[in-house]
């Protein structure tokens, strides 16, 4: 029978991260957010707890946990703040996992201990100015010149790519033409500070303001030939698998935001009075909260299911897309309702729900838009292609 109770150690981890989010993140994150400043001390705190190495084997410098443990940590962080959660999500699912999954022994030895300990951050350069959902339309090129790759092109919206502790960016690039005339895409590790690799000033964003996001450009940027990650020409398949598991992580993050809205509104509805009664007694508020709880609950079940299939080694593409879609819908709808329940205070940056509202929208866009999730679900249903 299906059992969604957490194991003792997953529950202990959840409690540990919950306490960290409540005691360390909540009191200070509002100020970082308003200053659009990267919260280095909080990242250090997460690193000290081993969160960046959660799904990495102990012999590679990780915690020996699994991807579901990462999801639980992300949910608890995002209950309080999404900037901190996405910094961990990108750090692990996009920074650590490509090397952990596809790196050779030398690359793993070189990068994983420092990435998994959170001492440094890795970023993943996939999206380009001219191609988001159409990620196969990569224009960045890498040409082998002697024993070096020469990388040219640019990447957009790259999380964790410009912090003081960013050590490398894993970029996808066209390295040739396949026999069928299609693009041969490969993945190449570009260490921070490599000549020709430029990080643009950080974007001014609608939400996720305390996270680090930049446009990157590569101008005759040379890295050693051995910086190729995995096999040449496997780049497309690699990032598809990284994005599929990343969808489950983002789903967990969205559930955290949706739950954070419920948490805040439950408290507020029990305190705030209007027309002589606490507003939690009015059906208008009760029905909103019931819907918010329902969305959170169903989205959580969806990501638990996708994660458990992933861990059992079963196909989970449809479940991952469904979880991501359900979760981003829940986050968006709950953020809108929470702001409404808070009234004018919900429009103020000083309340968490104001942040939740601004942070929710990107969940319908990042790591595959809601339209892409529907495409993926439709494809898994076996519908004919156009």
């Amino acid at each position, binding site marked *: 029978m299906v059992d969604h109770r957490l194991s*003792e*150690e997953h529950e*202990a*981890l959840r409690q*540990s*991260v919950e*306490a*960290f989010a409540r005691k360390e993140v909540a009191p200070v994150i509002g100020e970082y957010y308003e200053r659009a400043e990267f919260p280095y001390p909080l990242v250090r*705190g997460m690193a*000290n*707890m*081993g969160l960046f190495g*959660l799904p990495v084997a*102990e012999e590679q410098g990780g*915690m*020996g*946990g699994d991807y579901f*443990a990462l999801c639980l940590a992300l949910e608890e962080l995002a209950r309080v703040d999404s900037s901190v959660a996405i910094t961990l999500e990108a750090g692990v699912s996009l920074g650590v996992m490509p090397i952990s999954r596809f790196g050779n022994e030398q690359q793993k030895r070189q990068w994983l201990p420092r990435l998994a300990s959170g001492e440094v951050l890795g970023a993943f350069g996939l999206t380009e100015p001219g191609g988001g959902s159409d990620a196969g339309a990569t224009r960045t090129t890498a040409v082998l010149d002697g024993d070096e790759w020469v990388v040219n092109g640019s990447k957009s919206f790259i999380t964790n790519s410009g912090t003081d502790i960013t050590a490398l960016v894993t970029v996808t690039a066209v390295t040739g033409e396949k026999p069928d005339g299609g693009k041969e895409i490969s993945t190449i590790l570009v260490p921070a500070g490599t000549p020709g690799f430029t990080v643009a000033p950080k974007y001014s964003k609608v939400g996720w303001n305390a996270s680090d996001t930049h446009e990157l450009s590569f101008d005759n940027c040379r890295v050693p030939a051995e910086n190729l990650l995995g096999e040449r020409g496997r780049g497309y398949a690699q990032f598809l698998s990284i994005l599929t598991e990343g969808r489950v992580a983002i789903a967990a993050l969205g559930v955290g935001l949706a739950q954070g809205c419920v948490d805040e509104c439950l408290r507020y509805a029990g305190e705030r009075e209007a027309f002589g009664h606490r507003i939690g007694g009015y059906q208008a508020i009760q029905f909103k909260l019931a819907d918010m709880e329902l969305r959170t609950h169903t989205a959580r079940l969806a990501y638990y299911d996708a994660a458990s299939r992933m861990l059992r080694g079963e196909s989970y593409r449809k479940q991952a897309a469904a979880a991501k879609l359900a979760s981003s819908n829940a986050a968006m709808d709950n953020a809108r309702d929470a702001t409404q329940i808070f009234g004018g205070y919900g429009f103020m940056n000083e309340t968490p729900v104001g942040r939740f509202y601004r942070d929710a929208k990107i969940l319908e866009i990042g790591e595959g838009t809601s339209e892409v999730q529907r495409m993926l679900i439709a494809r898994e249903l076996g519908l004919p292609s156009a």
Partner: protein
Amino acid sequence: MNIVVLVKQVPDTWSERKLSDADHTLDRASADAVLDEINERAVEEALLAKEAQGGEVTVVCMGPERANEAIRKALSMGADSAVHVSDEALHGSDAVQTARTLAAAIGTLESVDLVIAGNESTDGRAGAVPAMVAELLGWPQLTYARKLDTDGQSVSIERESDAGVATVEANLPALVSVTEKINEPRYPSFKGIMAAKKKPVSTLSVADVGLSADEVGLGSAPTQVVSSAPAPPKEAGVKVTDEGEGGVQIVEFLSGQKLV
């Protein structure tokens, strides 16, 4: 050096806490139970000392079976082993009986150099148990430490009280109680959580630590709670409008409360 940390499971300060109507003891079912925050700091200080000096950290806890969760938390932070005194007969024990039980439990361990405790629990708040345990062991007591240094031979603390800060020193073995200023406790990592599952926890009865059931528990407690009432709801404060006399009004208020 061998360090013992005294830990207690308490109702979460974030949840509603109440006493049972029947015997005025804690209604454990009504609230989430957690490792007391002050004990997390005590564990952290023991781990820091261990990291500097080497040795072992043993957690000693008295409480019902459920207190095992608080013990696991301490072990997942990095403590090496635990002693859990768990016995129905302990129900309703007061501070003196608790101190006797804990001192007896410490007595079952070999060569303890240092005992670290929180200065007072967030539930009972008697703040007396650490001193009582030291007295029963016949060891020096260094209470209210905001800073602790040890070289394995002696221990030195900064003792902070309303009267000021004093540096106090004693030869080991000794007992130190710590305040919330002592450190910021670490959060358990997943590796620590996994490791904690394999660490030894010995569960002892009252008889196992050499006491008899009629020495402990509500029935023979030297102090008895005869009545209890819920804390009154917070009342609205006094609002003072500053019309040029604000400073005087504040001083008058404070002196009225005998605070200045």
